[in-house]
């Protein structure tokens, strides 16, 4: 049976404030937030690394709280505020967590990095002065295959210091 008649394919209107800008689009109801961000809005900094909510490459903030955008429907974000990696800082003004990842060599291929940065941002919001163990446990939802996490932990610690000093 052709699958294109089901409710999942019906278009729904979604209004989301993304990185401070209100965006309104019609998308198939089954569209995931990550695909909405990447394909509808062209915000390709948010990555897809898995299909089972394990890797965290797709992490964004919804109403200020980190979520895995592969596990949220675009329709569920309707009326909410979403912040992506593009929204927290750019070349002219990096977010302290971005600066820390750079200074501590916290990335290699960079594929996990946007999600890691968003996850560390959340971790430090919850716990501004975490120990190494707390950082490691706090990153349980994010996979990096390149760095062995060593410098990601160092970056999180450096960012904590920067944020506390600022």
């Amino acid at each position, binding site marked *: 049976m052709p699958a294109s008649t089901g409710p999942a394919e019906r278009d729904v209107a979604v209004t989301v404030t993304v990185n401070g800008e209100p965006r309104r689009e019609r998308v*198939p109801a089954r569209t995931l937030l990550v695909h909405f961000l990447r394909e509808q809005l062209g915000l390709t900094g948010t990555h897809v690394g898995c299909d089972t909510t394990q890797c965290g490459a797709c992490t964004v903030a919804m109403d200020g709280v980190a979520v895995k955008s592969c596990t949220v429907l675009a329709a569920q974000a309707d009326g909410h505020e979403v912040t*992506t990696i593009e929204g927290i800082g750019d070349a002219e003004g990096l977010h302290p967590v971005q600066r820390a990842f750079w200074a501590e060599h916290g990335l*290699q*291929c*960079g594929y996990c990095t946007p999600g890691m940065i968003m996850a560390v941002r959340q971790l430090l919001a919850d716990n501004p002065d975490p120990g190494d163990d707390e950082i490691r*446990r706090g990153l349980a939802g994010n*996979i990096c295959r390149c*760095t*062995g996490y060593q410098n990601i932990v160092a970056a999180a610690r450096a960012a904590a210091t920067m944020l506390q000093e600022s």
Partner: protein
Amino acid sequence: MSERHPSGQRSRGRGLIGEAVIRREDLPLITGRGRFTDDVTLPGMLHAHVVRSPVAHARITGIDVTAASQAPGVAAVFVAADLDRLGVGPLPGADNLPPGSRNPEFPVLATEKVLWAGQPVALVVAETPATAADAAELVDVSYDELPAVTGPLEAAAPDAPVLHDGADNVAFVKHLRSGDPDAAFASAAHVVRQRMVSQRIAPVALEPRGVAAWPGDDGILEVRLPTQRPHGARNSLAAILGLDAERIHVDAGDVGGGFGAKGPMYPDQVAVIAAARALGRPVKWMETRSESFLATTHGRDQVADLELAVAGDGTFTALRGTVHASFGAYFTSNAPSSLLGRLGPMLPQGYAIGSIDVTLAGVFANTTPIGPYRGAGRPEAAYFTERLVDLAAAELGQDPALVRRRNFVRNTDFPHVTCTGLTYESGDYQVGLDLLLDKLGYAGLRAEQARAREELPGETLLGVGLGCFVEPGGITPGVPGPDGSAGDQATVTVDPSGKVTVSVGTSAHGQGHQTAFAQLAAALLDVDYEDVTVVFGDTATAPFGYGTFGSRSAVAGGTAIHRACERILAAAKRVDAPMPLAEAAARLGGLSATAASGAPPETYASGAYGCVASVDPATGRVTVERLVAVDDCGVVINPLLVEGQVHGGVAQGLGQALTEQVAYDSSGQPLAGSLMDYAVPFAASLPPLECHSLSTPATTNPLGVKGMGESGTLGATCAVVNAVLDALRPRGVRHLDMPLTPEKIWTALQPHGS
């Protein structure tokens, strides 16, 4: 922006080599402005979905694509016959096989038979990824199922189900024999034997594979491909599609990790590219993570039955035995080299072993094809030998560190030719081990362990493990480049304003070559680091090269850059008086030079790793308390990058040691199909790593560098397993195969456990 960034006088000149410069590639990546393949969107772009075999071994009795072709949004459905009509050939199989080997062609889409669960059978191209996936459900393939075989030993058995009709599953057998192994074994005081498995594991680069292709201007076929070898990909595509390589433009863009698996050209990618040509429209395909476990090459999958002959004084005298390696359903291009060129020849590791008699057998099985995976034969060789060494120490009742030191190639004996015919150019294995023992506090640990064993025999079991290794790097394939020159090329251009561009045929995907090669060129030319731009990864702008794999880039790419820089400096001397390079370039209207690396001899980095692990006998759970790495990779261009490589390799090595495995059931169905059941290490799986180094410069390339991108997988796998088994030894456990899961350990600790 950091004290690590060179500033002032340190941003130029020789001092740049060895400087921990933070990476110039990071800014786009930390701000979400990378350019990965999945980020490519073009007007009119179509999306592909691959229909894969759900069974491991079957004859295809029919394919009906009628319903799928008529589904909404579908542009086309391709099966093998369609590709035939388009003149799309099969993938050629492997290179560098021993004479007499079997080397079946690898069809882009399956024809009569499917040989593994996941083999591409059809390609659906539609308006969106979702409509393509929906229509793929409608492709109706009938299979006549056959019995399957999945393990290397089972596949080599005479009564095994046969994959490639007309012969058994053994594709090749090669013997490594030298010295007098028979005499050595006949006169050995001890012979240590063990069957050991290096289990099948998945590379899991965080960016899945994919491709985007479209017809470009002037009839050029445009291909965005997450690849480690842009030129290699272009050339194999040309052969498979029947096109001139000049008509194909491959751009890797940013590549989200490779670890070997993004080296080969894959059938699914070829099918997508062929579809884009046939339809005259852009087509993109990205595999899902679950699909990746079926479709992207796996690594390892060998069973070794090896024996080590030990003389009365504890000297190792010979190795013998057999290694069976599965390559899955088909050969990918350089997969057999992992066994033939790495695993076998590297079995002696850093030990002065005079004789060898080892048989290497390559077999086909109903599993995902094997490809190179971080280390590609090196970690397996180190693992097998280092396990045998620990078993020898246990049987001799001697300390494993002592046994190693006694048998190392002495630092005065370089260059050392191994019994397998390799020439180790330099090294100092004793000093490396001593540094490790010192950093570990080895004597203290052994005392603590003895005390714990005596006083608390039922409590947590403490183990100390060593893993010493030699890592070959810098290989240059024997195939000459298009202009007949050997090796990778580099072009260095100095424009009249003094800006330098270095373009090189190696192709980084996370290693930091933009930074490292800019440091190198700035140092060699004595120009400002900030004035150097590095280009690679795009066949339109980078000169020919073999890409980045096998710890080769610093050696091969670095040598090519060194030679091109020398030519620039020579050409700059044409001005009448000595002057800075930028001034000379301005006077001469710019300078440009291209050079090839030639085939610099391989380098042999080395390392000594240590692990302290504890095992809870009640649960079988392992806690890795400490991991200490000592690496010697000769001259280091950027220690920050080298340590980063070590960290990542260690995590992957620990993953193989403790948690990772691609398992199949008896019908060939994979048991790990997603990141839910395939356990890569998380941040909390690792202790803080303690990294140390020494440096014996390579004597065989002008920079003194040694390839090192894989060392962590060699050292960590051995050290972690040896530590766990050291912990279990008083409880009567001699050996366990990886991964050392709690269940496996707990079972072994039960009174009637195995």
